[in-house]
Structure formats: C-alpha cells, structure tokens
C-alpha cells in the first residue's frame, strides 16, 4: 500500500486518471447491481486523495486541468463526475446518506474515515452506504445531468451537502476533537471541483469563497493552549491574506453573473470581516444590509440571529435583544442563541438572566472547545 502510494504520489496524472476510473466504475456498477464498486479502484481513489492532500493542489490541479482540456475524453470524464456528485446528493436520499455517499464515492474516503469525521461507529456508516446504494438501484435514481430547469435546485442540494460536511470539519458540532481541518480542506477541494464542472454557475464560487474565508482564519481560531478564540479576539495578522484575496476574487467573479444567492451573500459577509483590520473598524451597516438581502433568499432563524448580533455591534444590546426575543421559540435548542443573548444581557447589567442564558448555552453544547469557552466565560463573570 505504501509503495503504491509513493508511486502514485510521483505520478500525479496517472493518479488523477485512476480517480476518474473509480468513478466510472461506480457509475456502471451501482445502477446495475447495487454492490460496492471494485475495491481496487476505491483503494486507488483513497491513495490519490492522500497524494492530492500533500500537493499544492491549486497549482497542480490547474496544470492538470489545462492538460486535460487539450486531451481527448475530457468532457466525458467531467460529465461523469458531475453525474456522480448529483446522484450522491439526489434529493430522494436522506441528508445522512448524501453526506456518506459524497465522501465515499466522490472524495474517496474510507468507511472508517467517514465514521471518524461524524463520530459514528463504522458499522453505522457501512449500513448507511449499503442502504443508500440499494435505494439508488431500486428507486431508479439516475446518473444524469438534470435539465436546465431542475439544475438550480439540484445544485443547491449539492452545495448544502458540501457546506454541511465543511462545517463538520471546521466547527465539529459533535463531541470529540474540536476541529478537523483535513475534512474541511477535502471538502473545499470538492467545492472547487464543482466550480470547475459548472463554470457558469455563481453559487459554487460563492461556496468556495466562503470556505476559503473560513480556512483563512482557521489557524487563529485556537490559541497556543488549544482554546477557542472568537472572531473579535483573533489575531488578524495571522489570517491567510492570499487565501482571502483569492476568495474576494471569486466573489467578484460570481457577482459578475448578476445572480445573487445564499452562498455568495454569506461569502460577502465573511469577506467584510476578513478585510477589516480590527473588530472596531467593522462596517456593520454593510453587514446588516447583506444580512437583509440574505433574509429575502433564506429567511431562517439562524440568519436572523446573526443579523441581530450585527445590530448589537452597531446599536448596542437593547435593540438587538428585542430582535432576539422574536426568535426565542425557534432557537430554544440552539446554543449560540443563548450564548449571544447571555453576552447582551451582561452588557445591560442583568447578570442573573445573563448567567441563566450562558448555563443554558453550556447545556446545549457538545463540542469540547466551545464548552471550554462558555465555562471560562461563566467563571470569569461570576468572580467579578
């Protein structure tokens, strides 16, 4: 295995072709008999993914694509990938199945790797994959590129799956390791792939930009002792400038298509933060305007919460708290709602209510790093 890895590591083009072979194999075998694809092909895929991990993917991948663009059979390979991604994220599959299939078939993760990322037993993931493949075959889920009319919705489904996986890597909502940077980077690679397969669609660019902006700040999210650091307290000099510039380029290119979407707007909001040298110079008005645009497309309570936090920064806790009150029912089970509310209440000097809110936030949080942060807050405030 190691020898094969090293061999493939040196032969990038060959490895890349092997990924394509594995995908074509999946395309052929899944709809026909629903059995897992050839193990050898999957091993190659995994080996290739590992090799890709250690390379400067941006640079190499551009070269590879330039090379492929001139060669024969490129279109079919690209279309096959797109078909595979769309099938893995078909809306007739459960979100869990979409996630597992995408990681397995498109990103070449092993069952054990998926299980580790989602803190689930191997057997659970294996069974999830078997069921999903069975449904693809039995229900007649096709490997085909949908019509122009359907593509928008189907693409949204793909992007939502990718962003969910990304957040699992970036934020790690489950108990255990606070962050899984590798998972986040792998899935950013997938987002880049979707951008290349659908070069006229602005939303994949928005998602990729959003991921890059999160990754650019990734290293400053934890301090030397492994403690979580909030946006306001992060050392902005440690943010990855080239990654940020890259993301802003993408946002501008996407905006050129004049078809705004949820991910483009979220990326634009993240870019506002990324471009600002200190939290005090943040253009909160601009951010609130972007949240208002986002609310017209995605009127969700979490977006409203984030907007209320921007209002807090601009106008103070009083008006922000009034905004939060309207969300109390919808977000009762969301730890960040209580954490934000607690901070606002502290500012108003309502310590007792603030404490209750922070304790509720702590009860609802599984992630170890977030728990530690909330505990620190509770401790500091109660010793004042």
């Amino acid at each position, binding site marked *: 295995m190691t020898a094969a890895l090293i061999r493939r590591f040196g032969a990038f083009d060959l490895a890349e072709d092997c990924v394509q072979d594995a995908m074509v194999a999946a395309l052929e075998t899944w709809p026909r008999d629903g059995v897992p694809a050839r193990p050898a092909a999957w091993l190659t895929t995994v080996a290739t993914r590992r090799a890709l991990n250690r390379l400067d993917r941006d640079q190499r991948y551009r070269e590879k694509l330039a090379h492929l663009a001139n060669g024969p059979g490129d279109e079919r390979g690209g279309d096959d990938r797109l078909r595979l991604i769309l099938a893995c994220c078909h809306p007739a599959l459960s979100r869990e199945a979409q996630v597992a299939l995408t990681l397995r078939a498109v990103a070449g993760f092993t069952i054990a790797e998926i299980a580790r990322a989602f803190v689930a037993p191997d057997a659970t993931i294996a069974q999830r994959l078997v069921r999903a493949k069975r449904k693809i075959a039995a229900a007649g889920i*096709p490997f085909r590129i949908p019509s122009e009319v359907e593509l928008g919705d189907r693409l949204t489904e793909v992007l939502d799956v990718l962003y969910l996986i990304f957040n699992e890597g970036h934020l790690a909502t489950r108990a255990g390791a606070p962050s899984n940077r590798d998972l986040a980077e792998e899935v950013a690679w997938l987002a880049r792939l979707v951008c290349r397969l659908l070069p006229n669609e602005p939303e994949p660019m928005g998602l990729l930009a959003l991921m890059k902006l999160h990754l650019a700040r990734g290293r400053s999210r934890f301090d030397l002792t492994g403690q979580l650091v909030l946006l306001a307290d992060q050392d902005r000099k440690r943010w990855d400038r080239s990654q940020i510039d890259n993301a802003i380029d993408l946002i501008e290119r996407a905006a050129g298509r004049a078809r705004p979407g949820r991910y483009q707007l979220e990326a634009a909001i993240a870019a506002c933060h990324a471009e600002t040298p200190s939290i005090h110079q943040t253009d909160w008005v601009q951010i609130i305007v972007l949240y208002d645009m986002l609310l017209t497309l995605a009127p969700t309570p979490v977006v409203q919460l984030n907007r209320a936090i921007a209002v807090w920064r601009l106008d103070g806790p009083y008006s922000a708290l009034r905004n939060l009150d309207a969300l109390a029912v919808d977000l009762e089970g969301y730890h960040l709602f209580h954490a934000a509310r607690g901070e606002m209440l502290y500012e108003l000097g309502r310590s007792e209510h603030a404490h209750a809110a922070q304790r509720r936030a702590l009860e609802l949080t599984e992630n170890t790093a977030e728990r530690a942060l909330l505990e620190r807050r509770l401790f500091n405030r109660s010793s004042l």
Partner: protein
Amino acid sequence: MKYVFLFCGSAADQVAFDALTPEQLRDRYAQVGRWFAQHQARLGHGNQLQGPETATTVAFQGGRPIVKDGLFMEGKELVGGYTEVEAVDLDEALAMARSWPGGGTIEIRPVVMQR
C-alpha cells in the same frame, strides 16, 4: 422502471378541498384531467378511492383473519387514489409528480419487477 404514485392527503387538505366553490372545483377537475391526458402514454392502471369511512381492514392475528371497520393506519394522511407510472428513472417520475395540479402529497414507490 415502473412506479406507483399514491395520492395522499391530510384532513387539512380535505377541508381545503371541501371549501372550493363549484367553479373552483370545475377548474381543479379540468386541471387534473389535463394532467392525466398529458401523461397518458406513461400511465398504467389507476383509480380514485372512495372515502376513508368506507374502508374495511382484514388483519391476521395469530394466523386468524380479523375484520374491522376503518383504515389500516389511523394517521393524519390517507391514500385517496393511485396510478401506475412507467418512467425511465426517478427523475422522470419526479418531474411528472411535480406537475400534479391536485395538491396534497404524492408518495412514489418503485414496483417489484418479475425477474
């Protein structure tokens, strides 16, 4: 592939249906008629079912058939009709289901084919 569309509805759907004016009702039937005409080539056998108050169930308990008045599943949703659909794949079936003008909920089930 062969599928069966199960046309389902909830009590709320029924209330909304009952509230239609005679004119609206005629429109609705005309739309549904057009849907069936448009997809005729892909449709197999199908029927609208009489109301849930007409249902009878036979349940085998310990191998013995027990006859009862009413539905098998006492839920909020119930099946009001069905049709067979012949489609290339699920996406084609979904496109047909999306264009259904009758409201409610459609459950799409692939049929077990003879081997």
